[in-house]
Every structure is written in C-alpha cells, then in structure tokens.
C-alpha cells in the first residue's frame, strides 16, 4: 500500500514539476492532466472512489479541455523558441519571497493540524451516505453551489441563444 502511495506521489509531483520545467506548453498542459489523474489515483488509494471519479470527470474530462483550448488559442509567436529571459536579482528575490510565503502558509497549516497516529479504519462510505450527508448537514452549501452552477449554465445557454443576426443556413 505504501509503495503504491509513493508511486502515486512521484507520478503526481514529478509530472507537476515537469509541467513547470518544460518549455512546450502543450506538454505542460498534458503533464498537468497527468498530475490531476494522479490526484484521482490518490483518492482511489485512499478509498474515496466517488471523489476520485468526480476528479477524473471534472479535471481530466472537462477542465483539461478548457486548458488545452486556452493553450491552443493563445499560443502565438513561437513561445517554444523564445530565449529565456535573463534572471535578474529582482526576479530571483520575488520568486524566493513568494515561495517562502507559500511555504510558510503551508507549514502553518500542516503544523496546526493534529494528526491521529492511530491506524484509522477506512470509513466505508457509500454514495448514498455521501448524498445524505450532502443533502442534510451540508444542504445549504449544496444548494448555493447548485444555484450558482445552474445560473452559470442558464447564462451560457442564454448567451448562446441570443444571436443578433441569423442566416437561413444557421438553422439547427
């Protein structure tokens, strides 16, 4: 089990690191997707299959498409061949500073969490239980998220439906 965790972690972090290092944006995007799939694998390893499938569906299935679309539509002037700008002292200082800030926040978050060192039983949650939990205790949050998403969906539909000029050949 631990071996699998190490493998998943290496896959996740390795692909994420590579995604940052590579100059080819498409490779970076694809590696980012691999990293997301690694997150899903981690959820699966942890026994949360519902979350894992949702992660794959949303990130690998949908958000990856948006990322790839953005990359394909914005990649203009051969960015792959552009020389790397010389690192200045100011840039290095900013990078170190922001990395330190992030590290501090993460460290604070990790240190403030109290870990139980007992071997925890993996809770056998079924989808039904998750649903009931969402509907009862987290009902308000679910409702808000649902309303926001539905409004977004309706907004997209209305944006698509309001078409100023129509030609006969545009008929669906």
């Amino acid at each position: 089990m631990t071996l699998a965790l190490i493998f998943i972690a290496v896959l996740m972090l390795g692909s994420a690191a590579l995604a940052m290092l590579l100059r080819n944006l498409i490779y970076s995007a694809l590696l980012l997707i691999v990293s997301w799939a690694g997150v899903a694998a981690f959820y699966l390893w942890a026994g949360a299959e519902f979350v894992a499938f949702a992660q794959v569906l949303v990130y690998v299935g949908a958000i990856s498409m948006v990322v790839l679309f953005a990359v394909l539509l914005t990649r203009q002037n051969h960015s792959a061949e552009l020389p790397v700008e010389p690192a200045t002292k100011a840039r290095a200082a900013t990078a170190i500073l922001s990395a330190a800030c992030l590290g501090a926040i993460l460290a604070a978050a990790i240190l403030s969490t109290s870990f139980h060192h007992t071997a925890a039983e993996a809770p056998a949650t079924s989808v039904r239980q998750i649903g009931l939990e969402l509907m009862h205790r987290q009902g308000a949050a679910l409702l808000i998220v649902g309303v926001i998403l539905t409004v977004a969906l309706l907004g997209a539909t209305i944006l698509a439906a309001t078409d100023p000029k129509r030609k006969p050949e545009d008929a669906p």
Partner: protein
Amino acid sequence: MTTAPDSFLERAPLELRDWAVQLLPGPLQWLAHHLITVVAILAVFGLFFAFTTIAERKLLARLQNRLGPNRTGLPKFSILPWHLKHTLFGLSQPFADAVKALTKEDIVPAAADHFLHFLAPVIVVAFSLMTFAVLPFGREYLPVDLDAALLYFFAAGAATELAIFMAGWSSRNKYSLLAAMRALAQLISYELPLILSVVPVVLVTGTLSTKAIVLSQGYWIFGFLPHWFVFTPWGFAGFIIFLIAALAESNRSPFDLPEAESELVAGHLTEYSGFKYALFFMAEYFGLTALSGLGVTLFLGGWQAPFPFLEFIPSYLWFMMKLIGMIMFFIWVRGTLLRLRIDQLTRLAWQFLVPLALLNVGNAAFWVLTTHWAGPLQLVRWGVSLVIVILPFFFLGRSLSAGYAPRTYRYAP
C-alpha cells in the same frame, strides 16, 4: 422484481468459469477469476466490434440501395482438397480487414511528436475498454459492481477525447489539429447534455450503481408491461437526449466533425496508418458499444426481458439483442443524416439539448415527488409530466426554427 429464473443457459457461462477456476491452485484462483472475466469481455466485444463493422457496411449499403461487401469468403487452404466456393455473404470481411491493418506499413510523419503519436491510440483503446467494466451484461454478469458506477463510466469515457486531441496535435498536420480542436469543442458541448440526460434516472432510482438501476426497472405494470424508463415521459425525453449526445460523444455521423472526410481528409486519423489506425477505429466502435450499453442499461431495462413469458431467454442474450438494436439504430441514423457544421453542432447542444435536459431533471423530480399518487391522480401525474416534456420541445423548436421557413432551392429542382 420477478423471481430469477435460474435456467441452465443463464448459468452456463458462470459454471464454465467456476469450473475453469477450480482447476487452478488456490492462490491463483482469484487472479484467474478476474482474468477470465477480462478475456471474455475482450473476446466477446472484440468479435462484436468485428461484426459491427461488417454490419455497418452492409446496412449502410442497403440503406442506399447498394449491396455492400459480399465477396470475402474463406481463404483457400492448401490442405483442403477443394475450395469452398461460397462467399458466406462476405461475413469474413472483418478478418480480412484485420489482416490488412496488421500487415500494413506503420508510417509516422518525420515532424510528428513520436511519443504522443504512439501514445494516443493506446490511450484511446484503453479508456474506451475501461467503460465496459461497469455495464451489467446479464443478471449475474457485472464485471465490477461499483457504488459510483455511472460516475466511473463517464470519467473513463472523458479521457478518450483527450487522446483524440493528442493524436491531432502530435501529427503536426493542419487537418489533424483542426480535428483535435473540433473534438474538444464537441466534447465540451455534449458532455453536459449527456450527463444531464442521465441525472433523471439517478434521481428516480436514487443510486449510481448500474446493477440497482437495472433491477429497479424489473417489475411489470399490470403484470405484463415492462417498467422500462423509456416508457415514462421523462425517460423518453432523457433517452432521446441521450441518443443525440451519445452520437456526438462517439464522433459518429451526423456529428463526425473531427473526422469529416470532405473537409479534413480524415481528421485526427490523417497521419495514422496500419494498426494504429485500426486501434482508433476499434476505440470508436468500443465507445459506441459502451454508450449503447449504457443507454440499454439506463433506459431500456438492461438485461430484463420485455415480457414475462420471454424470460426463458437468458438475460445476457436480451442485453445483446437490445445492444444490437441500439447500434442498428445508430447505423440507420448514420445512413440518413448529413453532417452538421461546427456552429450548428454547438448551437444544437447549448440552445436545445441543455435547456431540455435541465427541464427534464425537473420533470424527474416531479415524478419522484408524486410517486404516491394513485388512481386518477396517476393520470394527472402522467399528463403533467408529458406536458413538461412536450411543451418546451414544441416552443423551443419553434423559436429555434423561427424565420427558417422551408428553404428555397434556386438551383435544385
């Protein structure tokens, strides 16, 4: 739920597997059990794919008043003293095609991204095969009984379009790249109505498990009418939306824009040849079969027999028959309809299918809330549900086609 008829035919494949498993030593039995399942799925659906291709070619030909492939017979074996003259109606065509695909030269463009170019067909076949894991092929024939089976199905299916993008981008070909862009746009447009059309079923059955969904369609109305979801107003609307979205998801005509021959040569397949091409072809049919199987499971009662007196036929045969029916319908549609333009495609999704699917979710919610209505109220329930389906369709259709009165053809008779 009816009592499960435990006939010999129903049990035969399982008995065969158990017999084969118990021949092996203990520790290997677990592995063998699963391997046999996997191999059985690969063999059955591999053959099914082979015969789908020939059925498609023959059916398309008949739909266009042609004969279709009818030449390929048995190979002339030198050990046989005579040659079988009969061509078997060309039924061995897929095997000839397979031999051809395997022996063809595999050409990779010099400028292509070799790694992604190689990876794309592998990914596309792997993910399209993964979806078969959660389809209940029969009463006892569910490879993996997942709690979140539906979610798994869509998650596995979502990765195939990513592979199409990889294929298109790595080929370094303008047509391929355009096809990849189209594939992405199509996926974004149709993933939503596809999932929204499935939500009503989940809402009514209260489960994501395919097994439970099939079982909930298992009893008879008045003792003989099947209680399949397609025979309810919301189920029918959901089924139609599912059909359209499934056509688009599996890149089939009339939504075959990523490989539109007249515009993009062969789309993302342009730079593929030999067995890699065959893999894409295979994945397309696997995807189609899996989506058809999901449609059968969700709306057409899965492996349930349509009438009580027909239950003596094994459940897996019922599933296959319904699956074949669905695929025949897809072929029929392919032989009839013209390809859409990309803007028509996205418009159909966002202006028509998504609103209808959203309304259908509300319809299913109404259906769930009125489960306890009986007697004349049952009629009211059906009426209201029908109105929720028909009125939006009618008005949306009218507003969408407003101003598009019958097109006048100036140069055609």
